[in-house]
Each structure stands twice: as C-alpha cells, then as structure tokens.
C-alpha cells in the first residue's frame, strides 16, 4: 500500500476501505445481518429449498460467527463487501439452488484429520 509505506511515524494510519474504526465496521456488519435475516424467507420460497426458515437463519448466523474474531476494520469491510455481493446474487436469483445449498455441505463427507482415518482412506494428496 503506497499510503502505508509513505507514513514512517510510530502511529501507522492506513487508508480505510469504508469505515474508519471498528465500531463503524460493526455497524455495517449489523446492517448486513439485518438484510440477510429479512431475505432468508424469500430465498427459501423463491428457490423452493427443502430447508426451513429457521435452519436458513441458523446457517446465516453460523457464517457470521465464523469471522467473529476479526479485529481489523479493513478486513471486516472486505468481508462485508463479499457478503453484500452474495446477498445481491441471492436476491436477484443470479444463483441457483445448488449454489445456495453449497452453504450446507450436506452431501459432503467431513475430511479425515487423524492419521489412521487418512490411512484407511488411502493417502490422498
């Protein structure tokens, strides 16, 4: 980043994406959560998904909780932007049912973590 390289003082100020501090970034996160929360019933109806609205909302909560630990406001802004892109694609039905159901990973087997399970399955790269 040119701006961060230019400042040589002790307090580094980087160019923000949208929000200047973490509180503003959290506000954007809350707005995005509201939009997703209100969108889930419409999504379940439009795509004719086989899940309930409650399950859809739990999945939204799970995706938001995955990035709960982030503290950098620029990183939070980037995640919010990606979330907004997903929301736009879902609202306008540019996605299809398979793309929405990929969030749920229902038909995928969990990957093996310990040595013995990997051995039984065969050493896949």
């Amino acid at each position, binding site marked *: 980043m040119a701006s961060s390289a230019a400042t040589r003082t002790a307090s580094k100020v980087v160019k923000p994406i949208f929000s200047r501090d973490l509180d503003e970034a959290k506000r954007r996160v809350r707005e995005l*959560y509201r939009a997703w*929360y*209100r969108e889930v019933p419409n999504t379940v109806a439009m795509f004719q998904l086989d899940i309930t609205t409650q399950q859809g909302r739990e999945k939204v909560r799970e995706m938001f909780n995955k990035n709960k630990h982030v503290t950098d406001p620029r990183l939070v802004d980037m995640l919010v932007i990606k979330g907004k892109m997903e929301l736009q694609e879902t609202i306008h039905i540019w996605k299809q049912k398979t793309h929405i159901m990929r969030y749920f990973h229902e038909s995928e087997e969990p990957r093996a973590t310990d040595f013995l399970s990997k051995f039984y399955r065969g050493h896949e790269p």
Partner: protein
Amino acid sequence: MASRVLHQCVRSLARPSLRLLSGNTVMRAAAGPAAAALRPVSFAAASRRTRWLGQSAISSGVLCRQYGDLPPLTLETIKDRVIYVLKLYDKINPEKLQTSSHFMKDLGLDSLDQVEIIMAMEDEFGFEIPDAEAEKLMTPSEIVQYIADKKDVYE
C-alpha cells in the same frame, strides 16, 4: 351529501359537551329539522350514533376518534407487547426476563441476537429503528422508552 354531513358534524361539535351524554333521541330530534326532506334522517342518526359510540367507548381519558386508526398506545401496553415478544424468542429464558434485565450481561445474548430482537420489535410496532440508535437499546425498559419517545406516548 358529504357537505351536508360535514355541516352537521361542525354544528354538533360546536354545541357543548352535554350532547355527548344525551341519548340518541335528542340527536334525532335535532337532526330532523336540520336535514332536508329528501335526506333520510335515520342515516344521519345512525352515523352519528356510531361516531359517538366510538368516542365514548375509550376509557383512557383522552377523547379521540377512531375512524380507521389503531387504538392509542400507552406505556403499559407498549411494555406488555415488548415483554410478550421477548418471551416468544427462544434464546431467552422467560422466567429470568424482567424489564431491567440487560441482554448481554444478564441474559447472555450476542450482539447479533440483540439485532434480531430489535428487528422483532420493528415488526411488532410497524416502524423502522435505525441501527445507530438500535445498538444502544440493551434492556427492555430502554426499548419501551425509545418507542414511547418515537410515538409520542407520555403519562
């Protein structure tokens, strides 16, 4: 015909409030000479009868007409509705819920849970609560106070 009804409304409102307590017979007698021969008297009396019923049925002390509007809000009704909505939320234990219980500290809820609660309040009362003010509402009593401020409800 609409102008004639309005004319009678204005004349009846200009009269002292004694008319409120008097029965329908007085109104019908007064409406008789006022209405023209072609206009049916019973219609005027019936419309005024329903209107006075609407006025006198409200026991909250405030004289207001309910043509097509919701019943007026009071602090108690707001509080009852807020507590009712909160009890329906499945992440809150209904026994531990009081008007002064903090969402994060007492009930152990998340910030996203608090967003969901505020959205439920928006759906219940039918008006938008912007996020800048919504993030400060942390107890049910604060929510009641905010709604009362927005809806001009006071004791």
